[in-house]
């Protein structure tokens, strides 16, 4: 026991002492723009909140309705990116983003049973909006194909994982004793709606 602990301690000390900053070479090489596209939305709080809200909303409605988003959301991002690049239309303004946060939050908090077509339309519309917003930082030297591929992959992964996590969380809601899980998801909707209300207020005030 003591011997193993000593060995583990030495290994730890060596690891800590040899800590170096990791120079991720790949980002600077040819495929770099793929990672730029994938990381761009994930470092933006606006995107994070909207994507997560969309995923939780779709997940709370069940797999049969939500699964269309696996396709609709990334395609919407691509459409938005292309649209933003072609027309120069980058953002509908902070009020539109805030209104979208509010809408998603209220739908989630009220536990509205949205029809599948409407859910897909909302998700596609949101994805077009955010795709266009992500086109704003495309430089002239950025490889647009790689950037678009990165963005679409990030959108696909984020929306699918969020929906799956929400579904898994709700599925355990078998008996009445687990009803708090449904309430917890609706409470998150209340939080998101509250953030949306304040952002709408701020956008209208400034």
């Amino acid at each position, binding site marked *: 026991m003591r011997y193993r*602990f000593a060995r*583990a301690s030495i290994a730890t000390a060596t690891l800590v002492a040899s800590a170096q900053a990791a120079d991720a070479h790949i980002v600077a090489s040819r495929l770099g723009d793929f990672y730029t596209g994938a990381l761009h939305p994930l470092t933006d709080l606006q995107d994070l*909140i909207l994507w997560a809200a969309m995923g939780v909303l779709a997940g709370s409605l069940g797999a049969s309705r939500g699964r269309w988003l696996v396709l609709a959301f990334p395609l919407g991002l691509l459409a938005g990116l292309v649209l933003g690049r072609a027309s120069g239309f980058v953002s509908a303004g902070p009020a539109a983003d805030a209104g979208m946060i509010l809408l998603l939050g209220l739908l989630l*908090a009220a536990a509205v049973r949205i029809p599948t077509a409407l859910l897909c339309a909302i998700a596609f519309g949101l994805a077009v909006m955010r795709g266009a917003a992500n086109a704003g930082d495309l430089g002239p030297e950025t490889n647009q194909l790689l950037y678009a591929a990165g963005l679409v992959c990030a959108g696909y992964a984020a929306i699918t994982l969020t929906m799956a996590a929400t579904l898994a969380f709700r599925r355990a809601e078998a008996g009445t004793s687990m009803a708090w899980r449904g309430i917890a998801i*609706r409470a998150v909707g*209340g939080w998101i*709606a*509250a953030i949306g209300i304040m952002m*709408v207020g701020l956008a209208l005030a400034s």
Partner: protein
Amino acid sequence: MSSRVFPRLAVALAALALTQPAFAHEQVGVAGGLASGLLHPLTGMDHLIAMVAVGIWGAQLGAPAIWVLPITFPVVMAFGGVLGVLRIALPVPEAVIALSALVLGAAVAMRLRLPFAAAAVVVAVFAVFHGHAHGAELPSSANPLAYGVGFVVATGLLHLCGIMIGTLTRWPVGGRLIQGLGVVIAALGCYFLAQSLGAVA
């Protein structure tokens, strides 16, 4: 058992020590905004005890209050937040916030069983004032969105704390304990009320 714990502990320590800061390129103020938003409801003692009291009272009242409260309170509070953002002044905000701690603490202490609608109105009025106080700080924050996220999450977690404490009412001793806690909250509310009216320095 312990021989398995030590290597794992060592690996965990190494993982912690080897972390590098993540450099987010945009939205410089996110960390600052988030931190100030999270801390704002926690650093004001009057806010903190009132929010915990809301959760405890909701748990005491049972269904439907216990689940309507965490869903609707943030939304009502956000309306107050918008008033704060728009710089629409509310009458004597500090006194009303202190009063909210006093009233909610007393309700917990007396196990006051108001009809659901009446309890909702009482809580909603106080929610607007609490939201106003947080919202007034929002436009000047490093990142308003992050600040908003922070303070909504912190307030929600305080309610959760209150609801957790409130589940003690299932046991007779826990019920007494909670009533005692209500008395403490009400007494603190009295003190803050006196302070805001200038009676205490």
